[in-house]
């Protein structure tokens, strides 16, 4: 099980510095929540953890991200392999519109050209079961992925992410486009998945962070336009009861942000 360590990570979009000097350790088999006001760089930071940040033209980072002591930004590291090891679920459900439910789940494997159909079927079933979606879709695996409801689509995306058997799962506000019932299902799922995966979740919802995470990192920015910084990180119970920094306290008690 993989541990992630970010050392002095800064991230830019062109000349705009979005994240400054974040040093943070993410422990394996735990859920780490990143919270903070809009624009504080938590989504940017989570994207630096699997080299998705650089996909945006003009984006770059400084610092190092260690995956079990190996720097994923070192030269000779293949970003494609990094992303296979560190999966990601996005804010809005984004199933591939031209693919069926089955093909969506197996997309990561099929498009890497590694497996045959007979081997894919059990993996699809296991991934859908892992995402808590199997019972709902098992009779309609050939229907389009886009035919599912929003909450089901997001679980489909989780199934798609875990089908490639990553070590770490990054979730960028996975519930922000979902209703409370679907949100609850995803939260239950996160609790089940943390036995097998290291999970990092960005959320705007502080109750959600309190419910699902073991440790919490609070990001903030001074004024709009400034880069976001990490304020403090610690066990969730401590951050939500007696944080060290008064800005954290102000945020979690709802006095700003």
């Amino acid at each position, binding site marked *: 099980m993989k541990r992630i360590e970010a050392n002095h990570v800064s991230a830019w979009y062109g000349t705009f510095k979005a994240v400054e000097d974040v040093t943070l350790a993410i422990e394996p088999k735990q859920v780490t929540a990143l919270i903070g006001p809009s624009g504080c760089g938590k989504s940017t930071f989570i994207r630096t953890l*699997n080299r*998705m940040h650089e*996909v945006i*033209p003009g984006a770059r980072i400084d610092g190092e991200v260690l995956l079990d002591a190996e720097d994923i930004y070192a030269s000779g590291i293949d970003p*494609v*392999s*990094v*992303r*296979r*090891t560190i*999966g*990601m679920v*996005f804010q*809005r459900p*984004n*199933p*591939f*519109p*031209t*693919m*069926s439910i089955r093909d969506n789940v197996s*997309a*990561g494997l099929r*498009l*890497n*050209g590694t497996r045959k159909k007979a081997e894919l079927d059990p993996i699809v079933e296991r991934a859908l079961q892992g995402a808590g979606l199997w019972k709902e879709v098992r009779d309609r695996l*050939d*229907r*389009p992925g886009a035919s599912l409801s929003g909450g089901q689509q997001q679980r489909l*995306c989780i199934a*798609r*992410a875990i089908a*490639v058997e990553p070590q770490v799962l990054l979730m960028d506000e996975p519930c922000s486009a979902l209703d409370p019932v679907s949100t609850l299902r995803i939260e239950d799922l996160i609790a089940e998945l943390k036995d097998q995966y290291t999970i990092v979740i960005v959320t705007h919802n502080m109750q959600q962070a309190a419910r699902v995470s073991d440790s919490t990192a609070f990001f903030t920015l001074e004024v709009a336009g400034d880069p976001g910084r990490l304020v403090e990180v610690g066990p969730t119970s401590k951050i939500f009861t007696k944080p060290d920094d008064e800005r954290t306290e102000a945020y979690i008690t709802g006095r700003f942000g």
Partner: protein
Amino acid sequence: MNMSKSAQAIINPSVLRCGRLGPGQAVAATAGGVALAALAFWLTPLQGRAGFLLVTYLAGTTGYLLAASKIEGRRSVVDRLAAVLMVTTVGICLLALGSVLIYTAVRGVKALDWYFFTHSMNGVGPRDDAGGAYHAIVGTLQQVLLAALFAVPSGLLVAIYLTEYGTGRLASLVRTVIDVMVGIPSIVAGLFIYAFWVLGLRRGFSGLAAAMALAILMLPIVVRSAEEMIKLVPPALREAAYALGIPRWRAILRVVLPTASAGITTGVMLAVARVTGETAPLLLTAFGFDSIQNDPFSGPQSSLPLFVFGQASSAFSAAVDRAWAGALTLIAVVLLLTVAARLVTRRNRLV
């Protein structure tokens, strides 16, 4: 005053109400306008068929709108006026399209029989009642398919380059060149192939030369439409693919292109339809030939537009009938190709 007005709106529902122009009233008002116009033509020296149509149309519309303004008020008149304008323009467009199709069908069906599809013009004089377009159909299909073979893959590659990889000056140069190519008159494309290939390299007239000229015309259409369609694919889908550890080229090939395929097909079919009817460049490249020429790589070849052009220039009615039949066949070929392309891409969509 404002307060009381809005309060009144809540208490007194009559403020929320307005009159409704019933269908019967609408028809009556329109008919009234039409009747007035007819009366004017009957009583005054006004005459002329086109003038009558225009005046009755305007009078009927005016009657309709006047009734609407009496019963329903200003906003509704604007709404109905816009609706009338839209229906009218749609009608004019359909009328133009329909009359082209129907007139071609009516005139073309005369010479259209099995013989027409199975025989060439070999040894047929302009006054003879025999002769067919088999050689022209073969030529058109071969030339257009060859042209598509050249233009579609390279056009797609250029579009992928422009949307996925192209940055900086090379990309904007390519874009400018493509824009300029859109404006190339088709005869210039034909002249280029004529000078470069037919004369310059001494290859002579052939279906292949025609296909190359047509490919020059197709390429910019394919590039621009494919580029626009690829741009429409949400970035979230690419990101989803990258996050699964799918390499970029595979994400483009297996996620981006399939998602854009319906639109790309439409663009390709527009390009095919556009070049299938091209005549001018073919005069300089395929040249035209009365006998069956199954080999597009050597010797002059006919094509449907050339066939239509040649037959229509004749003064004899048998030849003119053949020209109409050829034109109808040309429309049918484009239609068949479009339907076939739709069927092929439908397999990519689930729904």
